[in-house]
């Protein structure tokens, strides 16, 4: 058993009502299967609307798949009830794209980071605060900013806070849902380096959701490419970047911003 997360034949269908009142079924995920080893990173790359975020919500148990299995650390989590999920949730944490909306505007930095511990009823008040201070230091937020509200932090600092909050419950899997997309280049690089450092020191496993192949190549061991709710290509990051098999993969690689892109880009057939 050397895989932390196994996703098997996952499907997610929604029923939506049209303006005329007729019903239409939308398939957001179709036959999605992959796995991630402990301490490694899988980048899930795809265009907007390809089903990446739906997949993230299903894995984080925030949405129920229509069919298929999700196994975390040897335990199937797909069919657990809400009470059982409460035990599982701390093991999977999320960092979202929009740092401005992903933090509770009413909380101070310390409250934000200690909130998951409070929700889970772990530690007493003083211990929670001490742990929050350690987490803030871990993500590079200075101690004297502990009482500031989300609004008083920059975009990059807010994303650091979101990462600190996600780490509070010592998760095994961190889902980074477009966590770098809303940041400017220099801040993206800083947060990416922070993620690499944290993975090395804490042995974290990442599911890194992005549409940026450049960042996926930098962070991931493996890359899965999604299109129309399906995984159309999956392989080691180096191999997918060097010799993409699918048209969509080639297009996404071409779209990744980098210097001298035209000279090194794979040819679109």
């Amino acid at each position: 058993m050397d895989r932390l997360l196994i996703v098997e034949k996952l499907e997610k269908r929604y029923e939506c009502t049209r303006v005329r009142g007729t019903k239409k079924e939308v398939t957001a995920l179709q036959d999605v299967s992959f796995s991630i080893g402990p301490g490694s990173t899988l980048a899930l790359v795809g265009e907007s609307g390809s089903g990446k975020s739906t997949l993230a919500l299903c894995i984080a148990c925030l949405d129920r798949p229509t069919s298929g299995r999700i196994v975390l650390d040897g335990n199937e989590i797909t069919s657990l009830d809400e009470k059982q999920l409460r035990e599982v949730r701390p093991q999977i944490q999320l960092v979202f794209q929009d740092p401005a909306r992903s933090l509770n505007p009413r909380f101070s930095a310390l409250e934000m980071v200690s909130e998951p511990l409070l929700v889970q009823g772990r530690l007493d008040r003083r211990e929670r605060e001490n742990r929050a201070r350690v987490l803030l230091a871990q993500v590079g937020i200075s101690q004297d900013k502990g009482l500031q509200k989300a609004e008083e932090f920059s975009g990059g600092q807010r994303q650091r806070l979101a990462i600190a909050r996600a780490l509070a419950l010592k998760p095994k899997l961190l889902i980074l849902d477009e966590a770098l997309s809303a940041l400017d280049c220099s801040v993206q690089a800083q947060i990416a380096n922070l993620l690499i450092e944290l993975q090395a020191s804490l042995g974290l496993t990442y599911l890194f959701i992005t549409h940026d192949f450049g960042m996926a190549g930098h962070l991931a061991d493996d890359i899965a490419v999604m299109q129309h709710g399906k995984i159309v290509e999956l392989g080691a990051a180096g191999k997918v970047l060097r010799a993409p098999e699918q048209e969509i993969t080639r297009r996404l690689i071409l779209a990744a911003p980098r210097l001298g892109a035209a000279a090194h880009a794979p040819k679109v057939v």
Partner: protein
Amino acid sequence: MTYFLRRLMQAAFLLIGVSILTFLFSALAPGNYFDEMRLNPQISPETVAALRAQYQLDRPLPLRYGRWVNSLLHGEMGFSFAYNSPVAPLLWVRARNTLLLTLTATVIAWALALPLGIWSATTLGRVSDRVLSGVTSALLVVPDLPLALALLILAVRSGWFPTGGMVSVAFENLSPIQKMRDIVLHMELPVIALVLSALPILVRHVRSAVADVLEAPFLRAAASHGIRRRTLLYRYALRAAANPLISLFGFSVGALLSGSLLVEVVMSWPGLGPLLLEAILARDFYVVIGGVLYSTIFLVAGNFLADVLVFWADPRIRTRAAAK
């Protein structure tokens, strides 16, 4: 502190402005309380002129406004021609009755709207949400007048509720507890009418505000920490959706005196409504001005209360106020 001082100053200026405009419009409106007397051949024009002089209606407008402000500062708010008494105590008794009705209706309407709106937001698009939306839409399109009349007909036919007034004929002979029960019984019908008229707007605002924040990533993050659903909805989502709802609450406090006028008239509730209607028809000019001023004070107080609550509930407003 300067935030509240600024708000109080704005409120004071608003009240002064409203008092000047109301006074001006009432004075410019054609006719006055003594005009009908001129048609009566038994009252001589000299008597009418003497009465006009006695009540100083023949004086220039700024002077009359000055005297009215003076009487306001002495707690009188002018003089009612029809009741031959100072306006303030006359209005206060009626305003008290109105407040009894509208405060009860507002509390009940909000107590129903919050859980209904949250429930509707969490079941968006499902059958329960559609049924509730249908009911609120139906209530929204029914004006207050037919709604109050329909309830009145129901009360008359069924005999479940008293059909008018605030107390029974034999009220004076009742014990204190029976008196209270009698008032509550008489309140039921107008309170139902007021709740039914306020509820659809409140439910829709709560639904839309909560539905908007339910998709916020910080709520998803909280859900991923394993927070209980009830806590997530009532402590996190409702607090995040609070700002527009607090503003709406300010408006409902503002409408406490003016929102029930029609229902009071239809249901013969001895509140401000019937008094103001009579005063307008009789051109009992200081009573009308007093009624408008009372309503404005409530509107301004409601908005001030909303400002205070938003300031207390939202740290972002506090930060911005401090930064200024």
